[in-house]
Each structure stands twice: as structure tokens, then as C-alpha cells.
């Protein structure tokens, strides 16, 4: 199911969500070999950061809550990883974050020179008080960071958005106007909280955390649907996609590529091959193609 995305050929339309597995070249490659068209690296930050204490990730059964807290070696401490990645046979999407426009620009300029295929701006992580979501809930600050980063990078820019934004379609439009080449939606929802009633304590060390997995799929589908109506750049749709029919659904909402993250928990690393097969089976059974169904849920209304 070869797909072209922003001029790059991907062997499947599936993307590994940032923050899931992508910690080194070997695991990115393994995910790619298992049917992921575009593996995303863990978010790269402006300085070394350990993330939060455990518990950081809890499986709630119908999805997860997490506050890993953006651990990163820091963009200046990844030389060996870039060396290893330089002769890779697969595409990579480099996710980056910062605490200010200047930090985003500094990280982006450095990372762009290392030759990833795409740069994804994480302006949507709920798990840090100083990074991420504070940008993505406001159209002006989203525009400012995208415009500033766009000036200093030489690869396509993907803006990753949060469903916590009051008007995600408006944020997406602001990113497009600022020069974003694609939108990735959605980051985790919430944040939410789970409390252990025996110890009377929030379970996550950071207390609150982002929700992912099947429980947020309807939010993801709605966000992609709204964004598709407000922008003309392609959309990576993700949030609770676990099966081929989930993928078909978010493609009908308007996604060009489909991200998978939490489903690795429920179906293993081979989830990518499984979902690709299920998409193909569904398309074959219905005598249609991905191109034909993309945005199909809008057609009557358009």
C-alpha cells in the first residue's frame, strides 16, 4: 500500500506516534519492518530532561493515561544516534519540543541539518507545564512558532495539535497560514486523572496525564473531520486507532496517513502489518481505494 506524502514515498500509510517506542535506530527500524510507513522519533527537547517519576504510564483497559514528561537527551547530546540514522533505509519523522519560540527554533534548525525526512512540532503535549500544549491551545502562538521554525528548516514541517484547543480547526488553519506542510492530530486528550482510593492518591506521579487509545477515538475522528474542512494541507490522523476499520473511519474524516501508538500495547509491534492487511481487506471487499474514501464523510455536506 505504497503512499506518497509531501513528496516522499512511504511503504504504507501508517505512522508511529511520537513518544511510543521510538528511542533508538534499531527499534525505529523494527517498527518500519513491521509495516509502519513513517516511524516518529521520541520528542527531542532543548536540554537534557529526565521526565517525571513513575508511575508515568497506566493501562486503563480501554486506553492509557500517561505523563512520561518529555524525557530527552537534549538535542546537543544525540550525535551517536544521528550518526547511526545517517545510513538508514527508512524515513523518519523527528518530533521536537521547546519552552519558547527561540527554543523551538534552536532545536529545529539543529535537527533539520541532521537530515530527518520530516520535522514534527510538538505544540500539544499535556505533560509539562512549560512545554507543548501551552502553544497549541492558542492560534496566535501556534502561528508564531510554526512561522519561526519554518524559516530555519529544510524539510517539511508537521504541526501536531492538541484536542484541548477550544477550536482545533482554527489552530490548524493558523499553522497552515504560517507555513506548516501538514497537520498531525491528535496528541493525547485531557489531561485526565486517576486516583487510587485506597491510598487516596493520584496514581501518576505528575498527578494528571494525557489519555490515549480506544477511549479517545471519537474525539480524534471529530478533530480530523473539523481540520479537514479548514485546511488544504494533508492530515496525519491518530488517536485510538487500533484496527483497519478504525483507520478507514479516520481516513473518511479526512486523514491522509494514520498514526498508531497505544494500539502497540493491545496488539503488539506487529499491529502495523495487521492494520495494513485489515485496511486492504476492507478496501478489496468494498471495491474501493484509499484515495476514493479520503474525506468521504464530508461529501454529502460539501
Amino acid at each position: 500500500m505504497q503512499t506518497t506524502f509531501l513528496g516522499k514515498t512511504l511503504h504504507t500509510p501508517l505512522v508511529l506516534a511520537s513518544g511510543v517506542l521510538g528511542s533508538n535506530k534499531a527499534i525505529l527500524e523494527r517498527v518500519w519492518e513491521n509495516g509502519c510507513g513513517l516511524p516518529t522519533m521520541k520528542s527531542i527537547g532543548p536540554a537534557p530532561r529526565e521526565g517525571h517519576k513513575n508511575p508515568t504510564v497506566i493501562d486503563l483497559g480501554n486506553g492509557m493515561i500517561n505523563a512520561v514528561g518529555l524525557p530527552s537527551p537534549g538535542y546537543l547530546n544525540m550525535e551517536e544516534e544521528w550518526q547511526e540514522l545517517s545510513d538508514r533505509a527508512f524515513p523518519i519523522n523527528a518530533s521536537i519540543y521547546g519552552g519558547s519560540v527561540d527554543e523551538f527554533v534552536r532545536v529545529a534548525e539543529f535537527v533539520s541539518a541532521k537530515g530527518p525526512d520530516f520535522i514534527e512540532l510538538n505544540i500539544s503535549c499535556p505533560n509539562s507545564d512549560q512545554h507543548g500544549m501551552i502553544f497549541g491551545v492558542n492560534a496566535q502562538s501556534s502561528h508564531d512558532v510554526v512561522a519561526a521554525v519554518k524559516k530555519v528548516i529544510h524539510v517539511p514541517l508537521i504541526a501536531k495539535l492538541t484536542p484541548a484547543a477550544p477550536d482545533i480547526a482554527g489552530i490548524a488553519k493558523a499553522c497552515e497560514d504560517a507555513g506548516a506542510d501538514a497537520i498531525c492530530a491528535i496528541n493525547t486528550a485531557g489531561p485526565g486523572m486517576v486516583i487510587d482510593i485506597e491510598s487516596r492518591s493520584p496514581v501518576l506521579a505528575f498527578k494528571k496525564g494525557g489519555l490515549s487509545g480506544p477511549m479517545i477515538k471519537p474525539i480524534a475522528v471529530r478533530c480530523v473531520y473539523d481540520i479537514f474542512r479548514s485546511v488544504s494541507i494533508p492530515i496525519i490522523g491518530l488517536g485510538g486507532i487500533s484496527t483497519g476499520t478504525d483507520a478507514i473511519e479516520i481516513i473518511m474524516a479526512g486523514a491522509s496517513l494514520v498514526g498508531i501508538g497505544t494500539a502497540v500495547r493491545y496488539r503488539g509491534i506487529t499491529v502495523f502489518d495487521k492494520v495494513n492487511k485489515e485496511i486492504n481487506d476492507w478496501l478489496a471487499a468494498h471495491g474501493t481505494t484509499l484515495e476514493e474514501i479520503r474525506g468521504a464523510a464530508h461529501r454529502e455536506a460539501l
Partner: protein
Amino acid sequence: MITQLMPAMVKVAERKIHSPEFATLYIDEPIDFKPGQFVMVWIPGVDEKPYTISHHSPDRFGITVEAKGIFSRKAVSLGPGDKIGIRGPFGNGFNMGNGHKRVAVVAGGCGMAPLAPLVEAFQTDNGPETLLIQGARSKSFLLYPDRFTAKAEICTDDGSKGYKGFVTDILVQKIKALPANLAPGFDMVYTCGPEIMMAKVFEICEAHGIPCQVSLERYMRCGFGVCGACVCGHAVVCKDGPVFGSKALRTMADFNTRALLKTGRSVPLNEYAAWRCQ
């Protein structure tokens, strides 16, 4: 009920102090378990860490803790009635095989903890002939001295008990001492301990054509193969492991060489070990 989902708050039923360094906390709850698997242990307000199950019966299990850092020192201070959160068990556990006739179990230091339930499972009427080779820095670091009926060879680095030297020396001796018509001499070698020791055990096994299983340790977060904190080369230690067989080890780039710090930075194993022991 203890599951892989939200931590279940359970009471510590008993604490057994083995030495100034080691204590075992017992929990009177059933848990579905296979030797080599681990649970995530949560002390609210402190942290959550992975621990292997070192003792298991239908209505009780135990975890052995070495007091090293903030979390483990707090853990060994807990006593009857104190509550901890448990989720799990996670990981694959040891493959105990089918019809093994002769196995060796090689333990270094606290690496004895995951291997102990395995040795007990093998010590049944139909189990294989089991040779336990147990080593530690010194006598007080030798876990469970009177626990097993299996034949045991003891070694310490300082000679305070048993042979003065390494478990790997004994393993080589024992392989060579087996009659030549037994090939391979052991059907399987199981090992857990410092990674450099396990790498040496693996190397010895490879040289003698003996299959081997090692139990790895890396910094963990989720415990179920999603967050990527514990990757070792292409392997996800919490989910694909923590027990890995010879075939996986042959292609595992970072085995005995590198590990990720909490930031995700890949560093040489000695640097990782120094950080983990803080």
C-alpha cells in the same frame, strides 16, 4: 485483584530481613505467575519500580529488594500492614522447556531472585537434574542460603564462602567435567546477574553449543512495551523479555554494551550501572 491495569493496593503481610542489604516483602494475594516475570511496585509519593517475583505459592508471593537507592531503602523499611501498589505480572518469564534432563542455573548477586522460583520449579520429581551455581561479592550477599535442595556450587569474590572466584569459572569446569558422550552437557543454562557476567555465560554457552537464557534489566516506565524506555537494541526488554534466549542475544546490538538513561540518552553499560546504583 492484581492485574496489569491500575495498581492494586495490597498489604505487606510479612518482611523477612536476609542481611543488611536484602529483605523480602511478602504479599498474601494470588497472582498468576511464571518464573522470571516481574511486577511494578508502587510506593505512593515515592516512585514505582519493576521487581521480579522471588517467592511464589498459590496464595502468597514475595519480592526481594536490595537496599540501594531512595525507593529500595524505603521498600525495605516497610513492614506488616503497610500498603504498596502492584500491577502485573509483566514480561515473558523463563522458558522451562519440555523434557530437559540436565540444566544449569547461574546466579550473580541479586540475580538469584528471579531464578529462585525457577530452581524450585525444577526441584520436583519429574524435573531435570539441576546444577545451581551461585555467586556474590561476599557471604552476606548470597541470597536464600538454605532454600534449595538442588546441588549448589557457591562462589564469592572475596572467598568468604565457597570458591573464591567467578561463577563463570565453575560453569566452564562443570561443562568440561561432564562425560564427553553427553552432548550438549546441559540442555539449557539459565542466568541472571550483572550483565557482564551474563554475557560471559552466554559466550561460554555459545562456545559449547549449549542454549542459554538470560534475564536483562533496563530502566522501565510502562512495563508493557509502549513507552520505549527499556529498549536494548531492537528488543523491548519489558515486553519481549526480560528473558531472552541465545537466538535473540546474537543480534541484540546493545547487549552488554549500552543502555538508556532516564533521559533516553544511550550510554556505555558501566555509566548506566553507576547511575542505577545511586
